[in-house]
């Protein structure tokens, strides 16, 4: 085997270019020969060019990349529905403790500490949701939804209920439709009433002997509390169906109202939204599922139970099996545990108050119509011009814009969720960005952003001609 040194040269960026291009190193091809390979010839190549930057070059490269990005540690990030919360660093410290990550195949006797924490977390989440039992296994919110629907399905099958429909409000998160369909159900879409809430008459017309469940989030996608929730629960239960709670907006109710008390039978927790764990982005996540007592025997295996001070792994009687390896993504769950334990009852209750207060304060400071209220932790403003242009202009004012053009019930929607972590100063900064963009000319909006690392992206060209590797950048 023989490796030659690669050499890199840098070219200056074009100061006058319309869009900023990063100073990508241009590589001079270098031979790296492999003399003998057991692989067939058509799977090997004669040479591979490897970069060989100096350490400061490498450090600067990655620092520059991080500066081109915008994250919740750069400034306000009010992406509605997504709940882009700041993740306190102490949760990372806890997850990094020696012994935090015990091997999941170790015996219960040698990992009592971990099992105790898992059991505590099951119990905490059950208490927060008003549920009887909780599984920690699903690896993400949507995976939790799917797990919850599988549990409901197993319950119906065990009871000889032949039900093939799941009702989902049309304003629901897209994952609800997907989870129901993936579990083998027909999805019945429920239109919203004029006030943006569930249309109770339409729901009564939609339920039948075929209804397996209604999936609902409360407050809903518009940030509105479903005031008729008790009547909705009666209608669904009266038809023999189950009520599924999408935990995406639980951060608005934390410590105040519990899904279990509203009549929900199954729910998932988005720990990255309600508590504080990193958003997945494809990485490890967690989406625990809580159920009422009747559904507990169907949860994934194993559950952690305590007997005489000993913690053990137990297989529920009618378990649906596994939805992920071992205990799920334990270190993500451990961050959830740390957050709950540090804040306690009063702290958690305070987060929902601040989430709602922040959304309502921000709404009071911006010059936009907000058709639906009173809202909780998020609101949907109408841009009254192209919402995507407004959002891109907001980038120029140094903040991350809200979610755009969804839900469709609001024209040119700007779905805004500042989260509880922002200060009044940060909310004022956001409001200025909203209002400056509203005052700007159409020309300014159509060419925005102009102060960001990358200028206006040609979305159509990016989708039609994707460049999926660094080599494509040469072309």
């Amino acid at each position, binding site marked *: 085997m023989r490796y030659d040194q690669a050499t890199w040269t840098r070219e200056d960026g074009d100061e006058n270019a319309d869009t900023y291009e990063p100073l990508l190193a241009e590589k001079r091809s270098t031979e790296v020969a492999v003399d003998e390979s057991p692989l067939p010839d058509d799977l090997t190549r004669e040479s591979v060019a490897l970069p060989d930057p100096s350490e400061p070059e490498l450090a600067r490269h990655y620092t520059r990349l991080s500066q081109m990005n915008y994250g919740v540690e750069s400034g306000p990030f009010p992406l509605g529905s997504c709940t882009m919360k700041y993740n306190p660093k102490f949760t990372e410290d806890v997850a990094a403790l020696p012994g935090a990550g015990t091997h999941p195949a170790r015996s219960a006797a040698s990992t009592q500490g971990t099992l105790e924490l898992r059991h505590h977390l099951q119990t905490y989440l059950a208490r927060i949701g008003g549920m009887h039992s909780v599984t920690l296994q699903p690896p993400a919110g949507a995976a939790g939804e799917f797990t919850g629907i599988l549990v409901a399905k197993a319950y119906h099958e065990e009871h000889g209920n032949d039900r093939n429909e799941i009702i989902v409000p049309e304003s629901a998160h897209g994952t609800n439709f997907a989870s129901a369909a993936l579990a083998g159900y027909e999805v019945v879409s429920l239109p919203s009433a004029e006030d943006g809430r569930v249309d109770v008459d339409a729901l009564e017309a939609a339920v039948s002997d075929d209804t397996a469940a209604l999936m609902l989030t409360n407050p809903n996608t518009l940030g509105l509390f479903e005031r008729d929730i008790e009547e909705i629960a009666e209608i669904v239960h009266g038809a023999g169906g189950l009520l599924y709670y999408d935990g995406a907006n639980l951060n608005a109710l934390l410590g105040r109202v519990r899904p279990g008390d509203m009549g929900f039978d199954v729910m998932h927790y988005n720990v990255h939204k309600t508590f504080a764990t990193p958003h997945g982005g494809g990485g490890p996540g967690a989406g625990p599922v809580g159920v009422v007592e009747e559904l507990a025997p169907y949860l994934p295996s194993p559950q952690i139970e305590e007997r005489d001070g000993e913690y053990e792994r137990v297989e529920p009687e009618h378990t649906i099996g596994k939805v992920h390896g071992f205990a799920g993504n334990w270190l993500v769950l451990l961050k959830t545990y740390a957050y709950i334990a540090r804040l306690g009852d009063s702290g958690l209750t305070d987060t929902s108050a601040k989430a709602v207060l922040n959304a309502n304060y921000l709404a009071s400071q911006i010059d936009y119509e907000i058709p639906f209220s009173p809202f909780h932790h998020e609101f949907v403003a109408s841009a009254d011009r192209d919402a995507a242009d407004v959002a891109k202009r907001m980038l120029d004012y140094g903040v991350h814009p809200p979610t755009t053009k969804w839900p469709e019930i609001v024209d040119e929607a700007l779905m805004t969720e500042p989260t509880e972590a922002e200060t009044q100063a940060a909310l004022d900064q956001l409001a200025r960005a909203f209002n400056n963009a509203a005052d700007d000319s159409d020309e300014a909006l159509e060419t925005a952003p102009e102060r960001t690392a990358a200028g206006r992206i040609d*979305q*159509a060209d990016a*989708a039609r001609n994707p460049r999926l590797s660094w080599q494509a950048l040469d072309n």
Partner: protein
Amino acid sequence: MSFDVPDDRGYMESHEWASDEGGTARVGISDFAQDELGDIVFVEFPDEGAEIAHDEQLGVVESIKAVSDLYSPVSGTVTATNDELLDAPELLNDDPYGEGWLVEVDLADESGLDELLSADEYRDQIE
């Protein structure tokens, strides 16, 4: 804003069109549909020889805004596909009634185009 709705073909409520080419029909999407979708970036349709049926799924069109199912205005056998679209999906935006056609279909029966909306009826629907 008014949309181009040529009189020489029939339309579906779901915004596809079919034109009579004498025993075969050409199928595409309307000007209104391409405008609603925005910049189209990907299109998928059946292979030559596939059997398709009226009002059943014909394919998928994806724009920067949405992914939508396409429904067939006619029943029959696909005899030709517009493979240009695979490399140049923007033809659907630029020329929906011409170079942006999707497939040609050998009609299963003569009445194939009769159940479609006329240009006037379709114009009423989108206005």
